[in-house]
């Protein structure tokens, strides 16, 4: 069975994928759907949803269109999630790979370095970093990446350590391939599946982290993200519950979708499970 087929047997994962694709489509089309951007004050504040055809989801505390916010927010939330994950992979994978492959002092050094980032609880570290760098989309993404890479490094290290003892790697040594070449083209490609699974979950975690930072007032005030919307609407939760509910649902759906996909990938990559399932 191909990977895709095995993935497709997991109904949850397929639903997750569909949801995610929709969110991505919406995010990509945001400038087309709401060319005016999310910040325009278009109506009186606190317009209840479904009462005005032009503003299906109502308006927020300043009279801005909630639907426009959600659509543009999708862009930012996804962007933060994806970019920070890619960055975390870019740091974590090489570091973990080198540590696992060369062992010895390289390993010791790399792991002590990793440990440093793990001794500060990661949310706390993100707060500190954003405070230091001042909240902008870039610094938030960077901060999230910086706190997310250590687990990647550890995972990759463990994978590489077990892979490097595999016989096909030894065969490559015998064939006279250089270490770099072996690491890059023999070892790493075989560690890819757990990395992908982990990455799908990291995107979800990053979206949540961004929203938490936003809540503490450490969001970028120039971008509309879901986290921003919830944070901003939380104080009016009693009089206008829908304002925080809608972006909440958006985050929830996306994170859920990513988790389902992660789970599906996990099952698809795991040869044990394929037997168990019919």
């Amino acid at each position, binding site marked *: 069975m191909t990977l895709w087929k095995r993935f497709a047997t997991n109904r949850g994962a397929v639903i997750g994928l569909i949801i995610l694709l929709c969110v991505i489509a919406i995010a990509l089309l945001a400038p087309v759907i709401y060319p005016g951007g999310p910040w325009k004050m278009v109506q009186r504040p606190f317009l209840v949803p479904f009462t005005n055809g032009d503003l299906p989801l109502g308006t927020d*505390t*300043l009279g801005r269109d909630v639907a426009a916010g959600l659509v543009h927010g999708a862009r930012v939330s996804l962007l933060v999630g994806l970019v920070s994950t890619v960055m975390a992979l870019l740091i974590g994978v090489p570091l973990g790979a080198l540590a696992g492959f060369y062992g010895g002092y390289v390993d010791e050094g790399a792991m002590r370095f990793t440990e440093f980032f793990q001794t500060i609880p990661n949310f706390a570290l993100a707060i500190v970093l954003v405070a230091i760098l*001042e909240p902008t989309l870039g610094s938030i993404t960077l901060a999230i990446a910086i706190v997310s890479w250590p687990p990647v490094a550890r995972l990759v290290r463990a994978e590489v350590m077990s892979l490097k003892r595999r016989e096909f790697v030894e065969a490559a040594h015998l064939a006279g391939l250089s270490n770099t070449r072996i690491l890059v083209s023999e070892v790493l490609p075989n560690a890819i599946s757990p990395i992908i699974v982990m990455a799908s979950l990291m995107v979800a975690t990053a979206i949540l982290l961004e929203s938490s930072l936003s809540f503490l007032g450490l969001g970028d*005030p120039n971008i509309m993200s879901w986290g921003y919307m919830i944070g901003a609407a939380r*104080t*009016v939760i009693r009089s206008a519950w829908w304002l925080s509910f809608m972006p909440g649902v958006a985050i929830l759906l996306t994170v859920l979708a990513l988790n389902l996909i992660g789970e599906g990938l996990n099952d698809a990559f795991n040869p044990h499970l394929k037997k168990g399932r019919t």
Partner: protein
Amino acid sequence: QDAGGRIDIVVQPEPPSLMLGLVQNGPTQLVAGDIYESLLRYNTDLEPQPSLAKSWEISEDGLTYTFHLQDGVKWHDGEPFTSADVVFSADVFLRETHARMRSSLAYVDSIEAPDDQTVVFKLKTPFGPFIGVFEAGTMPMIPKHIYEGTDYANNPMNATPIGTGPFKFESWEKGSYIHLVKNEDYYLEGKPHLDEVYYRVIPDAASRAVAFETGEVDVLPGGSVENWDVQRLTELDNTCSTGKGWEFFAPHAFMWLNNREGPTADVRFRQAVMYAMDREFVKDVVWNGFGKVATGPVSSKTNFYSDDVTQYDYNPEKAKELLAEMGYDGTPVSILPLPYGETWQRWAEAVRQNLQEVGITVDIDSADVAGWNEKTSQWDYDMAFTYLYQYGDPALGVSRNYVESQIEKGSPWNNVEGYRNPEMDAKWAAAAVSPSPDERTKIYSEIQKEIVDDVPVAWLLEIEFPTIYNCNVQDLVTTGIGVSDGLRDAWIKQE
């Protein structure tokens, strides 16, 4: 007036210290106002009232202030309070530790205690607002027997403050609450009425609102919940609110506009900003209708206010014209909001939107409290939100923002915008030392008329922070300083 009972009041954020002589920020004064007292209090019309001084006289020439102290006042540790304490506090302690007091003390020639119950302040020149500095946050009375000759900042007694006020410090659970208990030896018979007061630390604004709703706290001092919740909370059963109690501070919100460089250095740009902002909208939507659009540097709540100034009504067209005239080229400008919660964030967003609509390229900078202080005091900003207290008199709270001598890097409270106008400086100085109130009114009117055309800063709003409380609490706000002036008179109606 029923005696007994306890009230719980929200304090936000948690004060760093309760030693009012060392730290004078809002939360500290809110709590320490119960512990420390000064010679006078001020009613909501900002007229002086007796406090530790039962009476006082001002000489004809406005140079000699004589205070007669109350009898039988004791410090919380039982030591008697005397004029020596007053002299020590004003002349020794606060001169060293209290920046705002220090500038007023510059007018003072000598402070003497002819006897235990009398204190005499002699001024070098007349100083109109001087009668306004005898408030607890400005000139708290510090026990001489504890502090004299010690390293004030590191005195261990700072942790257990000793004052003369109606309540005594009992305990402080960091992160949770501060507990004060009734001062049984208080010099006013029958006061205070309450047995104990808890100041509760609840870091999240929404939670503070919930705390009030569930009856966990009885009083939400101004600014402790977001404006959107104010309306809703006041509609709850048995809930009262008052806008009084802020007359002395009269918080005045404006944006520092950097007069030194960038587009904001051009007066036409600054005027355009004034016209571009829909300040009424912000008042109605962001501040839920509380407050009043500011017309100039002086708050209408204080004396010396004049409305004979150019009115900057919402007028985007005019703004665009001004911008065209100056040839604004789209250079981006940034707005630095105050890091004090959602209200200020929304406000900055509304301003950004207004400015964008007249064609100004603008984005919002963001920083936490430390970052905000750093940026404003190092002049690293284009437009920065702030609000300042007026302290009852333009000479105390207003002039510092506009005179050239107050241009000094390193503080966010002086002439941060870098406005220079020597002619105006002379008038500010003259108004401060004029012994005649009428004369002062006249000069301040002139100043206002002129400065409003220069738009050194963009005035926004006279902020009102309604205090929300359980209606059973009576006589909560009796002075122009409100809850921060202590709960000397407050009592709980027993049902």
